[in-house]
């Protein structure tokens, strides 16, 4: 099915299931421990042995020798595979440093060996017996140092990730009011609860992986090229995922080593990456240095907008483009946004929840706050004055559906914004300095082709199969809602099977495209099933109504079950008309913080997000997505920091005690409001994703609130107390 013009009337225009707050249909399985997560799938294949990964002790150089004898002789050991005895595995478009094999070391904790044993404890103990010596090479680990030699980074679909309109330099130089500030954000870790985990089993030359992965089809193809085998001989199954945040978009070392380990051991092998390896072996969000220059007229109308972002990565790795949202957010005829990249020898940087935009807001939206103060304008009013008609970075594009102004206005009302004191450091509550902050939020709403199979049995039950994944987001439920709505059956008559590469290829989960894309694919399959049902009943598919387990057309009325069994496949594809639009989601983010006047500790008091993301398929799970993202954004503003040891070239705080993320006590109160909007450019469901919108802006609102509370502007994230205390008023 092709979506080649904005949606007119559709079969879900008067929904009874879609759009209603619906509890997760997979909830009971999760709460009873029966949801099958990769590492605990004891029943899928017998004889599972345990693998344990050894990571490189150096960041860059080569292995001179590995002594494996003691490990091979250790109790319970079945096989040891070592980098020195293995050809480098193949590459894939989705990772840069080879995941295993060969003597060259590209980053710290890169996998150099895997021990397979009868028990986990035996594998771990034997792994510690491997002795490795290295020749260490010097490397580049300091972004600030390599930044000056940076090149313009390649973009997603263009050779150079730069957009310019008009003449930024001239317009900025001539602007009566100017702001030129630089912000830095540190490397960040996905820090998902479930580590990488895989069980691998060979049957002849056919390989099955029970794993934890967000993008089944990408990863099947990647694994084929890494293991140099035909993709059709690989099956991936990933029905439940304990968090990924982009870290599990790709095949990682657990999958490769489980496959190689299983081959070497001659039996199935399971591996969960140990937590201390998760930070340097895996990918992370790269650090950025961002320079924002904004010039306005005296009334606060933006004349020139410049946002440059520098990040680093291993050769071939992608950039973290913090300027992405700046292309869409504010008007300004002369603008320049550019993403630069340099080589760094740290572990590979790659996508993490809202790549680019999540950290881009930490710069742009603070710059907007700084400039509003310079102009003597309320920061909301300043933003309203610069609401664009067309996309500033690419004026050929209209906005598909944009209600940022409503988000900010409604948020201001609900949050009690009018009580904010514009003079910083003027509200005190006991030992706390109290402040409020606001930020706009923008996250693109990409949509991509997605397929599904929808079957009807002769009891009127519906089953949906697709390789779509549920990364904790609630995909099972919105897909069931979509099928129930389209076929006209109650929700409990729909069964959903996800994450199996034998099912039709979906969008997968990433980039906030999953919800919109996968439900549109299910819609396409349902339209096909309805056609088949109507045909069977001799009805007209365009006029037949599917409701309450019945099909009604004119005077004819049939029980849906009578049409079963039937099975339909469908895929939603998208026409070029969407290129005329910028499709995005929007939010107004608000935060109130207290800063301890003595210690400088920043504690959030409350947060609000007002979101515009088209039709909200399931307000309950959408809210969960947004509050989770707000927590993550709070973490990036206040504490998350993968600390680089610039001598040894690795992330030092590589466990969950050292890498702090917010705990419950940090998040006392959150509110999420969804505007009632529809976006007919995006798909027949008129729905956009929300999973990443919530991480775009809250951190900046918090940073602005810290400034409002204290009068101290910290531009190097995270905003920890050591950056505040020497600037707070004296207390002794």
């Amino acid at each position, binding site marked *: 099915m092709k979506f080649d013009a904005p949606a007119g009337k559709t079969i879900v225009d008067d929904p009874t299931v879609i759009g209603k707050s619906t509890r997760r249909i997979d909830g009971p399985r999760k709460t009873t421990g029966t949801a099958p997560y990769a590492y605990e799938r004891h029943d899928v294949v017998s004889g599972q042995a345990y693998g344990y990964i050894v990571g490189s002790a150096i960041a860059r150089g080569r292995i001179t020798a590995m002594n494996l004898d003691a490990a091979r002789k250790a109790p319970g050991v079945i096989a040891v595979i070592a980098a020195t005895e293995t050809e480098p595995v193949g590459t894939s478009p989705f990772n840069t440093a080879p995941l295993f094999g060969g003597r060259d070391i590209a980053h710290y904790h890169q996998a150099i060996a895997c021990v397979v044993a009868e028990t986990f404890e035996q594998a771990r103990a034997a792994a510690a017996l491997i002795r490795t010596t290295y020749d260490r090479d010097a490397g580049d680990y300091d972004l600030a140092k390599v930044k000056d030699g940076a090149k313009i980074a390649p973009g997603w679909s263009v050779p150079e990730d730069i957009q310019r309109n008009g003449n930024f330099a001239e317009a900025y130089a001539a602007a009566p009011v100017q702001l030129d500030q630089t912000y830095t954000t540190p490397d960040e870790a996905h820090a998902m609860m479930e580590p990488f985990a895989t069980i691998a089993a060979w049957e002849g030359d056919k390989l099955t992986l029970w794993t934890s992965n967000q993008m089944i089809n990408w990863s099947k193809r990647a694994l084929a090229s890494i293991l140099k085998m035909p993709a059709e001989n690989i099956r991936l199954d990933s029905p439940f995922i304990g968090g990924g945040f982009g870290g599990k978009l790709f095949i990682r070392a657990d999958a490769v080593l489980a496959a190689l380990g299983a081959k070497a051991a001659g039996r199935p092998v399971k591996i969960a990456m140990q937590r201390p390896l998760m930070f340097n072996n895996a990918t992370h969000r790269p650090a950025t240095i961002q320079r924002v220059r904004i010039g306005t007229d005296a009334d606060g109308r933006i004349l020139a907008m410049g946002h440059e972002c520098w990040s680093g990565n291993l050769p071939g790795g992608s950039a973290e483009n913090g300027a992405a949202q700046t292309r869409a957010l504010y008007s300004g005829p002369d603008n320049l946004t550019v993403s630069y990249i340099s080589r760094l020898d740290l572990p590979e940087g790659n996508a993490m929840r809202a790549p680019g935009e999540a950290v881009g807001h930490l710069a742009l939206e603070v710059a907007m706050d700084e400039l509003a103060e310079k102009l003597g304008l309320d920061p909301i009013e300043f933003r309203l004055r610069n609401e664009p008609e067309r996309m500033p970075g690419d004026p050929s594009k209209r906005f598909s559906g944009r209600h940022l102004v409503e988000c900010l206005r409604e948020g201001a009302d609900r949050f009690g914004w009018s009580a904010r004191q514009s003079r910083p450091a003027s509200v005190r509550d006991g030992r706390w300095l109290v402040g409020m902050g606001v930020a706009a939020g923008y996250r693109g709403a990409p949509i991509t082709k997605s397929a599904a199979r929808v079957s009807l049995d002769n009891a009127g039950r519906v089953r949906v199969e697709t390789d779509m994944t549920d990364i904790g987001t609630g995909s099972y439920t919105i897909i069931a809602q979509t099928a129930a709505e389209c076929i006209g059956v109650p929700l409990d008559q729909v069964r959903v099977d996800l994450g199996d590469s034998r099912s039709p290829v979906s969008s997968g989960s990433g980039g906030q495209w999953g919800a919109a894309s996968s439900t549109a694919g299910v819609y396409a399959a349902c339209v096909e099933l309805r056609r088949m049902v109507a045909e069977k009943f001799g009805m007209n598919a365009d006029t037949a109504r599917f409701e309450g387990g019945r099909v009604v057309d004119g005077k004819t009325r049939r029980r849906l079950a009578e049409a079963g069994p039937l099975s339909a496949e469908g895929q939603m594809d998208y026409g070029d008309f969407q290129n005329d639009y910028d499709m995005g989601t929007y939010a107004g983010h608000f935060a109130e913080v207290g800063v301890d006047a*003595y210690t400088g500790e920043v504690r959030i008091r409350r947060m609000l997000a007002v979101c515009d993301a088209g039709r909200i398929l399931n307000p309950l799970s959408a809210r969960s997505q947004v509050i989770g993202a707000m927590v993550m954004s709070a973490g990036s503003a206040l504490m998350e920091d993968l600390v680089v040891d610039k001598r040894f070239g690795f992330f030092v*705080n590589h466990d969950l*005690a*050292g890498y702090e993320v917010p705990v*419950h006590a940090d998040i006392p109160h959150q509110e999420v409001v969804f505007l009632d909007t529809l976006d007919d450019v995006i798909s027949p469901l008129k729905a956009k994703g929300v999973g990443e919108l919530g991480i775009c802006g809250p951190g900046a609102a918090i940073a602005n609130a810290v400034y409002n509370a204290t009068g101290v502007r910290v531009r190097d994230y995270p905003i920890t107390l050591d950056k505040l205390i020497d600037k707070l008023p004296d207390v002794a």
Partner: protein
Amino acid sequence: MRSFTYERAATPQQAARAVGGKPGAKFIAGGTNLLDLMKLEIETPTHLVDVQDLPLGSIEETGEGGLRIGAFVSNTALSAHPRIRRDYAVLTRAIQAGASGQLRNKATTGGNLLQRTRCPYFYDTNMPCNKRSPGSGCAAIGGFSRQLGVVGVSDKCIATYPGDMANALAVLDAVVETVQPDGATRSIPIGAFHRLWGDTPERETALEKGELITGVVLPAPPGGRHFYSKVRDRASYAFALVSVAAVIQPDGSGRVAFGGVAPRPWRSKQADDALPLGAKAVIQQAFADASPRDDNRFKIALAERTLAGILAEVGS
């Protein structure tokens, strides 16, 4: 983790003998610190003597009006004890500021005193660390040392003692009681219990091989107002950047100890004596010999401001 043998001790002295007589033997109490370190092979005991069932799990009155806390009283039970809450509130507050509810249920009084540093390089066996492998060097010096010590440290090791409970014990003048393999007992004042690192950062306390902590004695209650301020980057479940334990009397005199800054709870007579003069004077005394790094220099200002917050509360 290396393989090890395991036994349960029947009496304190037998436990001491079991560990004292065997190279590589260690006690295990709650296991919340030791097991983590064993998994990473930072600790590699060959034999574990489980002591948590020894009859040292109660809190009793002493003849001097104080309390004797058995070594295996859990952190949860200790912090909730009515006499502790009433007369030694600084201890309740310190314990409850540490770890999490689940960990405190398992953690014991003796084990808590002996928890090891949280220096990130100590935890990464690829890195040089004089404490973990003597003579290998100290990766933290010149590296990431934001959490580490600013005073009482050495050029061999700049780690801190990370715990909370001991800071309260320091201002309470607690005494650690032990039994040795030969049955001899010792009473070690808390101020002499943790050693400064000097040239031997692998030696962390005054305990000798096989010496078992049997209890901690609190002298009669000190009176005054009790404070424990723990400062950290997130609101809970994190080790202190700086913590301040203080008991302040109505006349402004008192006792103060700083946590998160040194190899042991950092208390001195000079600092105590300066309390009536205010936070700045106390800090000048307590941190006179400080040798901070660029990334942890803030701890001194932070300690001063944290104490100032306490003194302001006393004054208000």
